[in-house]
């Protein structure tokens, strides 16, 4: 992706910095979700949430 951006212009440099921020951002997952991924949960069939 970065190869497509002009890295000489100010706008291009800004875009590359924005991309780097996205690519290095740290995220963590709630341990309760991790446990559910390991063990599964009792969930109803079909719809779990939402408006028709």
């Amino acid at each position, binding site marked *: *992706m970065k190869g497509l951006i002009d890295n000489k212009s100010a706008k291009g440099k800004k875009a590359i910095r*924005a*991309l780097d921020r*996205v*690519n290095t*951002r*740290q*995220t*963590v*997952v*709630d*341990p*309760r*979700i*991790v446990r*559910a*991924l*390991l*063990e*599964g*949960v*009792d*969930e*109803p*069939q*079909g*719809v*779990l*949430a*939402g*408006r*028709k």
Partner: protein
Amino acid sequence: MPRPHTFLRYQLNRSKTRNLASATLARLPTPQGQHVDSTFNLQRVRFEAIDGAALNAYRTWESSHFSWDDVVQWKAKELMYFDLSIWSDRELCGLCFANPNHSRKRIRVVRLEARPGGTHSLRGYIAPLALMAVEHYAQIVGSKTIEIQEPVQGAVSTYEKLGFMFDASGRLAKDLACTWHQEIAQLMINWRHYERSH
């Protein structure tokens, strides 16, 4: 002449989120729970957008509750939406659509549906898989709260196990800025200091 918006940043965020969700699954050990049958394998799970392939697969679902074709219009109208289709190999097992509010402080799971019939390969895993991805997305866009819009009554206990609670206004929500989040961030900082000093 104003430059047309491509919303590249938002597309990147969505793509990054799906990659992070896949990476999270790849780091997990093989599940050994009661609900798991011998065919279940997290490594087969794929996270994709709700694209043409997902909509084609959704149309094969029998007695689906929602019309997921609506998502095409929503995607054209909203900027920061997060759309997710959850696959096990070539089987579409779940669909999710979430959207942050204007301030991005709160992200709402607008719809979440598993393949009807309960015979799909990821039965018992759609809610945690979808909410894990939404949680990654919330952190990327800077949202502090995830809210479930109109949860099905039978699924409320599942959401509660995943950390959601009804707030004062009766909305089923989860605050991402809670203690465990800060504790993990602090542990990571401590670990980096430890690595540098040794």
